[in-house]
């Protein structure tokens, strides 16, 4: 049933298919959770194009781009960590997890700076529909980042206890897929909010 890739880099198999199906099913629910917000975004963008246009210009797109790069880097470090543990390199995995956590924290830090800057300028969620969407979408995403950090921290603790090896890396693999998904959502939020409001 499960035909693993020929590339030696990805052997051995990583997580069993049962676990992969589980996480992808969970991500399906996440897609539809954010789906509600994407629907609201579409509806309101069509209903209030002028307001969206004037509001989105108040966001700093360089901050958005910087955060995108931060998240992309964190995805890279998770991916490398997983590739490392598949070869049994436990220390490399731990280092990658620490880097990922630091990048995640940096992401939240930048987000915090942005939000506090908005607040300083008197921009609140109730200011307009656009900012209501902006705060809700980035806020829900930030909650997912925090949840991901919780999972990554757990993985780090387990990795330090030597729970993972080339033979057994399922929880790390699953956490990795979840973390990439958090990145994926941001990849869409960035243009929707910062670039094409």
């Amino acid at each position, binding site marked *: 049933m499960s035909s693993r890739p020929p590339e030696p880099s990805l052997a051995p198999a990583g997580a069993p298919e049962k676990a992969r199906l589980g996480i992808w099913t*969970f991500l399906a629910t996440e897609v539809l959770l954010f789906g509600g917000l994407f629907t609201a975004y579409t509806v309101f963008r069509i209903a209030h194009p002028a307001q969206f246009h004037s509001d989105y210009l108040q966001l700093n797109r360089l901050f958005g781009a910087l955060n995108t790069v931060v998240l992309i880097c964190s995805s890279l470090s998770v991916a490398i960590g997983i590739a490392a543990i598949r070869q049994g390199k436990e220390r490399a995995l731990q280092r990658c997890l620490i880097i990922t956590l630091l990048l995640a924290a940096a992401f939240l830090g930048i987000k915090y700076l942005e939000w506090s800057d908005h607040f300083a300028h008197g921009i609140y969620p109730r200011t307009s*529909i656009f900012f209501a969407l902006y705060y809700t979408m980035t806020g829900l995403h930030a909650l997912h980042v925090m949840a991901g950090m919780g999972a990554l921290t757990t993985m780090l603790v387990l990795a330090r206890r030597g729970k993972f090896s080339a033979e057994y890396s399922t929880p790390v693999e699953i956490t990795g897929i979840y973390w990439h998904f958090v990145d994926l959502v941001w990849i869409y939020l960035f243009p929707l909010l910062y670039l094409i409001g």
Partner: protein
Amino acid sequence: MTERAAAVPLADRGYLTERGFRAWATTLDHKRIGVMYLFTTLFFFLVGGLFAIVIRLKLMTPGPGFISDHTYNVFFTIHGALMIFIFVIPAIPSSLGNFFIPLLIGARDVAFPRLNLFSYWLFVAGICVVFGSLLNPMDTGWTFYAPYSTRTAAAVTVLAFGLFMTGMSTILTGLNFVVTIHKLRAPGMTWYRMPLFIWAMYATSIINVLATPVIGITFLLLAAERLFGIGFFDPAKGGDPLLFQHFFWFYSHPVVYVMILPAMGIISEVIPVFARKPIFGYKAIAYSALAIAFISFLVWGHHMFVSGMSTVAGVIFSFLTFFVAVPTGIKIFNWIATLYKGSIHLDSPMLYALTFIFHFIIGGLTGMFLGALGTDVHVHDTYFLVGHFHYTIMGGTIMGLFAGLHYWFPKMTGRLLDELRAKLAWLFIIVGFNVTFFPMFILGYLGMPRRYAEYPPRFQTLHIVSTVGSWVLTIGIAIMFLNFLRCMRKGQPAPANPWRALTLEWQTASPPATDNFETIPTVTTWPYGYGKKGDAGE
């Protein structure tokens, strides 16, 4: 005391051997978790029922009654929210599904047992939060329509978080079932050898996984709207109240199929066993479950015909709604064709199964009236809708649940039910149910709006009939539950396969051992071959 002495102890208590709170609360056994769900949901069925009885008592008089109008609003909201979110949605999937999916597919447990236990406790925690909202109870109706729900003084936010948690639990259970059905089937159990209950549960789980997050985000937005004063649903702030309804029904319409599909699965199991015939049209029934699940996502707009939705959307949603009737009709015809020339045994599970078909035909056909754009304008938000809904959910889903409970009681407890009492309860229930809810169709057609505490005196006669019916129904349900409680302890020990059924759960002991099967069976045929060999397609 003499009667207690007469109760025969079970030779082998199977999965029930370990006793005590800890053994239950921390169990990873899908059967125990299923039983815990069953007790929890049935308890809230009784609580929700109490509210219904009070509502019916109030409606005996057209004028102000013994409860204030606000209390009345609160009561029907609690009745609806409890019954829908805490009883009907999890009732069959989380309880009987948890207990029987692994048994029916020949597995030792679900795919993620820890997650399963977590789901249960998340569910319980969610219920606790929901009850926290009773300090300032809801008066919005179970649909929480914005913008009223964003303005009312009631504890909407608390309730929303509680239901978010129970919804999360439903999602995780659905996820567990999907993976279980894909990966843990016994050797030889191909898709076409799966019992139809599994097909139904698979379709149900897909809906749970894909629709529930949308109600999750709806509740989050509703909470955000109240907490931070944003205006997604408030037209005064540029929002769109209909957006709430779109979100709500994108979830809640598929979810009525979450309620009915598992019941249909149970009926598909019970009918061939008690007609002693291979099920007619196995593949058609199996695929119609998936078709219902799929179409259910296309029709949510039919709840909004009179909400100010665009005419284009109204026409399209009305058109699509009629497609639901096709797979549903396929199922009904196949069950009836299975009965044809069968050797029918009218044991209690079969009585409830036939009652399901009877009620569901009425509930389904009146649904067509409501789905048609033109007639809906006339009967929308009247007792016609209340009648339709209770015929499908109470008369359908809950009869299916009762059929399943009577059918699987020997397997779950290792004891037989008292058939005579079961049939007596059935008699009260079918009479009481129809006397309660049939007049509602007439009331609604005459123009009695739903959710009103007071009404014109000309409707009083039918309301009184309905209320008297609710008493008969209550007596029937009381007899049934007392029968369950009594036979759980004192019933005759059950053989492994009292109904001579062919599905796998009956091929192991009653009650099953903790790991279900001594050796995992190898499946060589479909489970409905009464007197006929071969699989569905052969």
